[in-house]
């Protein structure tokens, strides 16, 4: 590659990355500000907004709710999604292809649309909005991740590996337990982590399906409407920290290529 081209490439890529992470940097920076202002210049570092957040009962209960929702969503979609992936990858058929587009449909609908549709549905069937309905909404959007990621891993597996296991004396259950599952497990855990990251940050669907309770993004929304409260930055940083760590961990288990499909 010519030198000039790669300098341009790095400039563009670097500028775009800076643009993408500018909001993240701003939030984290101001969460550490010792002053209440959210503007420059910066006077000093402190953790006072984190202390303030943890002292606030609204924050701790929202945090607990967010954790509950993320955990329940992740466990549910991992079980349901991984099973579906195994079935999809086992055999090629038009019906199964149709099914995979069906599973991924929630990804291409705007969150608002899904949120109000779910609200209408829960109202119609007389289901009280609660954390349960939030979990259902989150599961709808994160199920495609699991199916796509696990599917990608299964497709990359050499078909003859499972056959070799059978050939060497394993029953189909043993082949699954000793060979296939261990090879797919990292992808499932990676997908779980991404589902957690998504759920922890999800706002729109949560907003319409939550009822009286609160998660961290809902809390932030409420605080924003009440005017400037610098602890918002601390809460936002906690969300960001969680999702970014979850994504980084997921990156150790699955490759970017399995996601980019």
């Amino acid at each position: 590659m010519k030198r000039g081209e790669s300098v341009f490439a790095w400039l563009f890529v670097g500028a775009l990355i800076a643009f993408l992470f500018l909001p993240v940097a701003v939030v984290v920076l101001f969460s550490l500000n010792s002053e209440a202002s959210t503007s420059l210049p910066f006077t000093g570092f402190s953790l006072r907004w984190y202390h303030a957040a943890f002292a606030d009962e609204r924050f701790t209960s929202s945090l607990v709710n967010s954790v509950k929702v993320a955990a329940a969503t992740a466990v549910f979609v991992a079980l349901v999604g991984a099973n579906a992936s195994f079935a999809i990858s086992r055999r090629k058929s038009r019906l199964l292809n149709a099914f995979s587009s069906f599973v991924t449909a929630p990804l291409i609908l705007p969150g608002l649309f899904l949120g109000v549709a779910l609200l209408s549905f829960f109202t119609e069937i007389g289901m009280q909005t609660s954390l349960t309905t939030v979990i259902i909404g989150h599961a709808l959007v994160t199920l495609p991740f699991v199916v796509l990621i696990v599917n990608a891993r299964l497709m990359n597996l050499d078909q003859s590996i499972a056959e070799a296991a059978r050939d060497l004396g394993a029953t189909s259950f043993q082949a699954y337990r000793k060979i296939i599952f261990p090879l797919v497990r990292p992808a499932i855990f990676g997908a779980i982590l991404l589902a957690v990251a998504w759920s922890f940050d999800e706002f729109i669907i949560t907003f319409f399906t939550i009822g009286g309770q609160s998660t961290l993004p809902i809390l932030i929304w409420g605080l924003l409407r009440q005017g400037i409260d610098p602890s918002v930055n601390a809460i936002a940083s906690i969300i960001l920290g969680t999702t970014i760590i979850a994504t980084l961990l997921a990156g150790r288990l699955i490759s970017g290529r399995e996601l980019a499909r």
Partner: protein
Amino acid sequence: MGAPASGVGALASTEAAAPDRSSGGSAASVDAAIVVEGITKRFKQTVAVDDCHLVVERGAFVSLLGPSGCGKTTLLRMIGGFESQDSGRILIHGKPVDRLPPNRRPVNMVFQRYALFPHKSVYENIAFPLELRGVSKKERRKRVQESLELVRLPGVEHRRPTELSGGQAQRIALARALVGRPDVLLLDEPLTSLDLKLRKAMQLELRSIQEELGTTFLYVTHDQEEALTMSDRIVLMNEGRIVQEGEPAEIYNRPESVFASHFIGETNLLEGEVVAVESAGTRVRVGSLGVAAPTGDVSPGVTAAVSVRPQAVAIGPGVVHDHENRFRGRLERRIFLGNLVRWYVEIDPGVIVTAEGPAEDPPLEEGTDLEVSWRRDDSILLPEPS
């Protein structure tokens, strides 16, 4: 491994269950390593394997040879238990295996792309079948060691499959398939992903391992040279059918069809019409020429093909041999092959005969008129060219 019931008992009940399939032939071959009786397999519209019958004797190295898509791999996979046939049955060491899943068949397979388990070490890969069978740790270690020595690759136990070269991975796959002492080893084009030099070395080594163990090997390949080098017997397949079966020399020297003569080795194929059938031989008219061939199962008036190996064709201005076939022609092309030379001679408009032999001195010039000849008995008469 295998059906627990005694051979006789299992067989008796099978015969009762499938009376229409009990043929007299199976009694003689009941002890063979593999018996394939009338196996057919369809995928959607296409017939992958069409009514194949095959007997593989114990301790033999047999190759299933044919072009890609001829059904050889499907047949192998049915023997291994990865596909189920639509009709027919398979016996291994006299026991029917048709209803047995792969893990309960007394055969093991070496896969084309090795199929080593990437999350297990070499040791764990080879020990896998022993572990499943509940072999003791001590015994496992001993047998893994033996297997590694058998494939001449001791000392790699702790490596991961990703840390092995292609040739090493193939040896480990072989060790893993042999460690459980299968009755029959199935090999599905195991050498295709190796480079030429390594492939040649592995061919010899596979053969010597097979001789050392005395295990029956059923080897699928599309490479005729490989099959000729390694096998006791070759089973030639085309379009789902077994077209010829025999020892390598037999297959090479006496092809029974145009396909066989084409697929194995190079050959000249002269197509024409049978004009005379005599006790001494057959005459076939090819263009304006009369070609002499041995007697065969043909009658005058039918179309036939005569196959001649290039090595059997002699050339020269003024040939002195007492060859029954002698034709004048013009040297179209002369190609230097290193140890040999190949000449392309047009003996009739559009009819080109290839001859091969040691270099002549001085070299003939292209365009020279010359004579080609071969013995009648080197002509192979093949009925019904396709």
